[in-house]
């Protein structure tokens, strides 16, 4: 196919926009200001490109609001006669029977919106105060550490503290004279902290901050929650505070805590969700909590979707679980070097089907079987 001849067709503009969108999201920070950023600026300077890209980014910005769906059935895929040559709207017009398929209204999405509205009112109140918010920004040097799928990494920090990173984990370390800040962006990490009263060691994950009081602790950042497990000493967990900067002096103000910090001690565990909900402190076996550093993933009565999120950090193939199956609860040990075996075995313990795709393994709720009479 000759690319040049097609360049004027709108669909190629859309495909380019889609490609750029994913490139921008995935690019390393350093490339954003140089190679990638410049090339994108040139492309975006074109008025038509700009219009399409803006549409694409608005649609994809809603990704978290869209309802999770089950994967199209094999039969549906096989029967799909749409060949991309004309826009879908046009094709549906010529094949109207496709459109008669009714799907459930997005009930879940509405609830989110109501929640959003409540938060909106809350934020309005907040914005009335004459303070400027700034995210937990650290000006000095910061270093990003990350691991690939299945990779474990031990990091020795300049203050003598040590961090073990789990698979597909990313964290940012920023030390200043006043504090040692870590932002756990994704994945799981075990922190063994050298205590220093003058420079608190603060881990931010999701919407919470974890402050050490001389200790070792684990933090897991799942897609919508954070789990803190203390293996030694005590930590304080509080809802995340943004830095408040006074507009008059440009100095940092001491923020009023949203709620009192929660202290967790050795052999205790606390989970908090991105919706601001804190669980209660649960007793936990510290040996179980650290087994992942030795290649064994231990779970105790966890929803399967979180189990899969963790296992997926060690699996060469992506594992995708459908929402119904994700709600099943799992207890047990998964060996990081034997994941495909474990995934297969799920079909024996749960009412699920394990479908092997090319790059992905799907775990789906088995359709209710026909009862034999």
């Amino acid at each position: 196919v000759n690319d040049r001849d097609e360049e004027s067709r709108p669909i190629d503009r859309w495909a380019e926009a889609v490609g750029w969108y994913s490139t921008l999201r995935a690019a390393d920070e350093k490339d954003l200001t140089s190679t990638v950023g410049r090339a994108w600026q040139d492309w975006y300077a074109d008025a038509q490109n700009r219009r399409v890209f803006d549409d694409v980014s608005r649609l994809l910005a809603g990704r978290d609001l869209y309802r999770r769906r089950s994967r199209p059935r094999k039969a549906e895929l096989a029967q799909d006669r749409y060949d991309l040559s004309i826009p879908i709207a046009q094709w549906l017009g010529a094949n109207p029977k496709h459109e008669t398929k009714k799907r459930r209204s997005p009930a879940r999405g509405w609830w989110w919106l109501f929640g959003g509205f409540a938060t909106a009112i809350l934020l309005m109140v907040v914005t009335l105060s004459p303070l400027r918010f700034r995210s937990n920004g650290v000006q000095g040097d910061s270093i990003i550490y990350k691991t690939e799928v299945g990779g474990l990494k031990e990091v020795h920090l300049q203050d003598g503290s040590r961090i073990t990173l789990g698979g597909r984990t990313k964290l940012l370390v920023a030390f200043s004279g006043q504090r040692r800040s870590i932002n756990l962006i994704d994945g799981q990490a075990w922190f063994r902290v050298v205590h220093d009263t003058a420079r608190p060691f603060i881990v931010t994950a999701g919407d919470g901050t974890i402050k050490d009081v001389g200790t070792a602790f684990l933090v897991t950042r799942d897609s919508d929650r954070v789990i803190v497990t203390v293996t030694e000493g005590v930590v304080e967990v509080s809802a995340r505070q943004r830095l408040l900067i006074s507009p008059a002096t440009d100095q940092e103000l001491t923020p009023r805590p949203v709620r009192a910090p929660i202290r967790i001690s050795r052999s205790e565990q606390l989970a908090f969700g991105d919706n601001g909900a804190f669980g209660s402190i649960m007793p936990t076996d510290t040996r179980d909590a650290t087994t992942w550093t030795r290649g064994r993933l231990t779970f105790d009565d966890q929803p399967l979707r979180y189990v899969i999120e963790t296992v997926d950090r060690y699996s060469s193939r992506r594992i995708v679980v459908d929402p119904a199956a994700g709600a099943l609860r799992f207890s047990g040990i998964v060996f990081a070097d034997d994941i495909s075996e474990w995934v297969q075995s799920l079909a024996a313990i749960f009412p699920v089907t394990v479908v092997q795709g090319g790059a992905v393994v799907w775990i789906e709720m088995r359709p209710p079987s026909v009862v034999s009479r």
Partner: protein
Amino acid sequence: MRRESTPEQPGLPDNSADASGLEPERSEALAEISRNHYAALVRFLSVRTGSVEDAEEIVQEAFAKMLALDRPGTISFLASYVWRVAVNLAIDRRRQRKLQDQYARSLPQAETREFSAESTVEARERLAIVERAIGNLPARCLEAFMLHVLNGLTFNEVSREMGISGRMAQKHLARALEYLQSCLDSADQIGSAR
């Protein structure tokens, strides 16, 4: 249905050099940078941070820093300076935000409270239109959309999963998004015709 408004230009000095205390050359340079880079920067950062509001705040802060430079240098230096500063500021905010939070920040601020109810309805309608449109996607386009958008797979992974090339995976998604947008656009037209 209203579209997201174009980002406002920051209060940059125009040609009134006396009032701003800047040399005309410099204010022209700043105006040019603002004209050529402001909207692009906001869009660029909104992709990274997931929020237009965050992006605007960051860009305004970056422009403020640029304005504060003692010796500004050439236009191309200033342009790359403002991009660099903005990207650095954005790194701090890269954390995924709660989606309620994200949605809340897309609403107008406190002084225009009466409009927020209206835009909630708009956002809700918009979402309902997109949801319905997703339900109408042909199976393979739906699969590409699900894998890439809802499950976060890369195009490489999508292409392996669907047994097609990366370029084709991209095209499936492109057709899907083009369709979703066309549904929104035609709803806009019906809305304005009423």
